[in-house]
Every structure is written in C-alpha cells, then in structure tokens.
C-alpha cells in the first residue's frame, strides 16, 4: 500500500510539475499585462484625424477582445507628441524601458513616426504606424518591427494623382508642407505624374501649421499649371482650400487634396470641397459592416470615424489576435504571427502584412459629393473606383526595404 501511495504521489507531483511547466510556456506575458501605448497628436492640427476619438476606437477594440487575454489584463496608455519628434521618441523610449509597453501605436505626423520606429527597432518592440503617411516607413526606413497599417504616400499618389493625370491634368504645381510627410507625398506623386506623361512645373514649401497661404497660392497661380497638388494635411489643407477659393485659384486650377480626411470635409463643408478627388482606405458608409461599426463609434464620439480611427480599432484587434496565436507578447513571435495573418474585418476583407511591414489592402478613390447629392449628415463621398491592394502600394519587388529578399 505504501509503495503504491508513494508512486502515486510521485506521479501526481511530476504530472503537476509538467502541467505547471506547460502553463508557463503557454502564456508568457511580460509583467502579466498586455500594455498598448498610443502616441498621437492630441491637441494640434492633426488632433481630429486620430486624437481623443481615436483613443475611443482603441478602447472599443480592447473591450471587444474582452479586455483580457490568457487571464492577463489589456491596458492602454496615451501620450501627446505635439508634432515634435523628440517628444514622441523620448516618450516611446520611456515607455519601453520603464513603462512595460508591449506594442506602440503611431498617430499622425510622419517625422515623429519615423523617429518612434527607430526607437521601437532598437528596443525590439512592435510599432504599428497608422496615422503617419510617409512610405519611407516601409522603404528606406523599414525595420523588422514596423508595420505600416492604413495607407501611405505611394497609395495616395497612385490613387488621386493617377486619377487626375488620366482625367487630363497634365501640368502640376505642388504646395508642400515642409517636413518628411510633405516631401514624401510630393516625391511619390511626382513619380506617378511622370510615369503617366504629366509634368511638374514647380513647387513651394510652406512651414507646418502656416497661418496664411495667400502668397504661396499667388505663386501657384503664376505657374499656370492645371492642377494644384496640396501635399499637406489637416489644418494646413483646410486653410489652403479656403484661401484657394477666396483668391480665385479654383477658377484656373483644379485642387488635388492629396491627403484628406472626412474630418476636413466636414469642417470645410461641401460647397468648398465638392468634386474633389481623394484616396482613402476606409469610408464609414461603404457597406453594412462599416456602417455597423461606425454606428458604435458615433454613439461614443458623436462623429463618423476617419480612416485612421477605424484603423486604430483594426490594428489593435490584429495585434491581439497575433498575441493569442503566438501565446506570448514577445515581439519577435508576435511580429511573425502578424506577417502570417489574413486580416478580415470591417476595415479590410483581405489584408496581409508583407515582409517590409506594409499592410496591403484595397484602397478607394472617392469623389466628394455636391450638396444636392448629399442626402444625410456625413454623406460626403461617392466611390469612383476600388484600387486593389497590389496596385495601390509599392510592389514588393520595387521596395527599397533591406528586409525584402531580392
């Protein structure tokens, strides 16, 4: 009897040890918390693109994931980079070193996101850039830890730029925000223009957050180009369009809002924006699924979502799904899972994350409706065409990313 009991006891002990060891391997979550950090422009010219309402979208994603994985809580921390690269980078560094942040979400401002992507690569943590536009994030400045989720300057150039050149706009003049984003957007759109037989007659760089565009517009008019390409965003785009209408620029030139969000159209009104083309990865009124999600977003924030806010939700769910599949929040395992994932939600039906970090999905060329065509609040866009993901973004073979094996 005693021998059997000892053997039985030993078996139970060894068995439970094995079980315990198995459990430890199955859910290795650092600090017992899955912490997501968001660094965005919360108070400046891009605050309506992501901002506080974007935070609501992330909270929705965490709530829909039941707020926990493997029994560990999912937390969100938020910071304002104020459009300063040094603030964004130092906050990211502090969060990775002392804050126990497991994944960083990047809001608007390409310069800040480029800085944060370098910090994330140094610390070996995933960084999902959503609000920033510059295609450099997946080309010259790519890292094994950066994912560029919603859109980029190449897609904008090919979408809006391509459509306007094909429609007859052969000569262009650029009004460019003088920092990384503006330069990227101007370069990528110029490449498209040249490839389709158009010509760039000139450009002028304005400081970020410029209060007055009148003299730049005067120079644009003097160039006699057919299209005025606005390589800026947020408040700068709004001011440019207002001034362009005032100075009669719109009578002799067509405006190309190369990056426009629904928040910009809402602020300017349809009188000033009707007929403008824009490229986007998401529109709240696209189909039943987008409408259903947008309804929840509207109840929380009283506004329809921008592409960036919708992408915040989708990226958070994608990350959490990758953590679940990898059974850990270790960066390398999670990144490997994310690059294997097929993203299928209201944001995209067929999203894939490539080796260079680019999330490829369909983009949409939209045209802003006129007041007569708009039947209900926020009914601003009509779909001109769907651009399949493999045509919208830089082909993998042409990527300047060092991670892509040629």
């Amino acid at each position, binding site marked *: 009897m005693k021998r059997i009991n000892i053997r039985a006891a030993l078996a139970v002990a060894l068995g439970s040890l094995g079980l315990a060891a198995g459990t430890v391997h199955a859910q290795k979550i650092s600090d017992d918390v899955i912490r997501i950090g968001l660094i965005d422009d919360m108070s400046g*010219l891009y605050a309506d693109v992501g*901002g*506080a309402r974007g935070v609501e979208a992330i909270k929705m994603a965490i709530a829909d994931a039941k707020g926990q994985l493997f029994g560990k809580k999912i937390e969100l921390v938020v910071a304002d980079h104020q459009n300063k690269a040094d603030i964004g980078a130092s906050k990211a560094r502090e969060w990775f070193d002392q804050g126990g942040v497991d994944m960083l979400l990047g809001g608007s401002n390409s310069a800040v996101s480029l800085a944060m992507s370098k910090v994330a690569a140094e610390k070996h943590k995933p960084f999902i850039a959503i609000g920033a536009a510059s295609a450099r994030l997946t080309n010259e400045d790519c890292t094994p830890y950066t994912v560029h989720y919603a859109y980029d300057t190449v897609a904008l150039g090919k979408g809006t730029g391509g459509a306007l050149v094909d429609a007859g706009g052969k000569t262009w003049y650029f009004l460019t925000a003088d920092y990384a984003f503006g330069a990227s957007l101007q370069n990528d759109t110029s490449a498209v223009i040249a490839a389709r037989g158009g010509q760039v007659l000139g450009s002028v760089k304005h400081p970020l957050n410029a209060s007055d565009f*009148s003299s730049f517009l005067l120079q644009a008019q003097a160039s006699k180009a057919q299209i005025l390409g606005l390589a800026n965003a947020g408040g700068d785009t709004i001011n440019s369009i207002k001034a362009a209408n005032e100075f009669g620029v719109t009578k002799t030139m067509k405006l190309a809002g190369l990056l426009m969000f629904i928040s910009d159209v809402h602020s300017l009104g349809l009188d000033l924006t009707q007929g403008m083309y824009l490229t986007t990865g998401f529109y709240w009124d696209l189909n039943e699924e987008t409408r259903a999600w947008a309804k929840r977003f509207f109840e929380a924030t009283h506004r329809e979502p921008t592409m960036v806010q919708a992408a915040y939700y989708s990226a958070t769910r994608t990350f959490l799904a990758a953590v679940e599949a990898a059974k850990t929040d270790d960066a390398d395992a999670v990144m490997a899972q994310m690059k294997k994932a097929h993203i299928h939600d209201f944001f995209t039906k067929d999203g894939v994350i490539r080796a260079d970090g680019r999330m490829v999905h369909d983009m949409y060329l939209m045209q802003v409706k006129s007041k007569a065509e708009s039947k209900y609040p926020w009914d601003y866009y009509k779909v001109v065409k769907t651009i399949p993901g493999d045509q919208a973004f830089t082909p993998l073979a042409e990527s300047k990313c060092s991670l892509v094996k040629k």
Partner: protein
Amino acid sequence: MTELFGVPIQALMGQLLLGLVNGSFYAILSLGLAIIFGLLNVVNFAHGAFYMLGAFLAWMGLSYFGLNYWVMLALAPLLVGLFGMVVERLLLRRLYGLDTSYSLLLTFGLTLLVEGMFRSIYGVSGQTFDMPDQLRGATNLGFMIMPNSRAWVVLASLVVCAATWYVIERTRLGSLLRAGTENAALTSAFGVNVPLMVTLTYGFGVALAAFAGVLAAPVVQLSPLMGQHLIITVFAVVVIGGMGSILGSILSGLMLGVVEGFTRVFYAEASSTVVFVIMAIVLLVRPSGLFGRER
C-alpha cells in the same frame, strides 16, 4: 516682363499687397498688446485666446442666433471686452506691482484653459463660417486677383488702428490714460478713477483682439488653435516696434507683414522664422524697439 532677383515685378507687387494685408492684421493685434503693456505693464499672453473667442462668438452668433457677420463685428468685441474686464478685476489686479512674469504666467494659464475648453468641445478641424455676401468675389487688379474679403480686412484694421492712435495720442481721454500709467497716484489726486480706467483699457485692448478675430472668421480656419499660430509672431512684432509704443506696433506690424511676404517669394521655408531673426537683430541693436522709449 521686368524681373527683380529672378521674380517678375508683377508677382512682387502681388506679394507686397498680400504682405500689407497680413501686416494690417498683425498691426491690429499688436496694437491691442501694446496698449495693454504700455498702459498696464501686463504681458497679455491671452491675446491669442481672446482673438479666438471673438471668432468663435461670431460663429456662435451666426449658427445659434442667426445674427450675421456685421452684427457680430460690433457685438463680439463688446462681449469679449466685458469678459476681459472681469478677468482684469478678478485676476490681473492682484498682480500689479509685481514682476511682469507673473501676469505673463497668469494670462498664459488662461490661454491654456480657454483653448483647451474649446478644443475639447469643438475639436481642432474648425467650424464652417460662410463668407458674408457683401464680401464675396474679388477684384482683378491686373497683377493679381484681390479677394474683397482681404481688402476689407486691410480697410477695417487700418481705420480702427488710426482711430485708436488718434484717441490715445490726441484726445483728453487718451491723455488721461497716459497720465494714469505714468503716475497713478498723481492722476487719481486729480479725481480720476484710475483703477476703473485700467479695467476699461484692458477691456478695450482685448476687444481689439476680438475684432481681429471676427475679421478673420470667414478668411481662416476657425479652430481653437487659431490664436496659437499668431500670438508668437504678434509678440515679436510688438517687441520690434517697442513694447509701449502705439505707433510703433502699427508700423512694425505693417512692415513685418511685407517682409514676411517677400520671404515667402524668395525662400518660403524661412517665412515663419524671419520675424524672429529681425527681432533678435533689433534687440541686439536697439533693445527698446524701433519706436520704443527706454524704460
């Protein structure tokens, strides 16, 4: 077509005129600041917030009460002026006699409060403000197309600036104000209610900012951040003109608007910094400003 430094004369004239438009804007804003500093010795950092308040009141008047632009042009400055007077009586009065840094910090805190409140309610993208019908359209001047709204801004600013300068420098009321700041005790000995005068002056300076805000409402993005962009440049303008000089702030406002305009033609990237470069030079060469008196 003749050229100057590689730019056609016609284009330069257009930029000159645009520079005057911006300059008149700077002039009216820096006038308010200069009055407040000159007469109260208060560095009113909240000037940008009052400018924004003026613009937002104009928008609220239009959206909620159907009051048009012209009514709000008179009403908004009045309301903001009243609010300014309340601020002065309750808050600023306690800081007189102390170092000017205290009033700067107080008004800076006020700015953060007001802008933050509006930002959380309205967001930053801005509100739609339709151009009033009388200001629509543009005049073709030959070398450029001048929108009527901008021409109106120049006209209104210059008229108000000229009227203010006249009142302060040439009328009895103005002389009372100037006396009150130079020697409050002596002036009150003559039976003048100096504290009341100070309150009214602050209210007036702030009302000037609100007036500029209403002028700006149809022209620029009507966002809670609109004051932030301008206030730093306007401070530089006031420093260049001389912190207490009324005429100095008007003239340097116009001059700097033109300088900025030219910079935009020749080297656009520097257009936001050229004012500060000039300010640095002026401070080195003539610390009390171009038209200021030694204090």
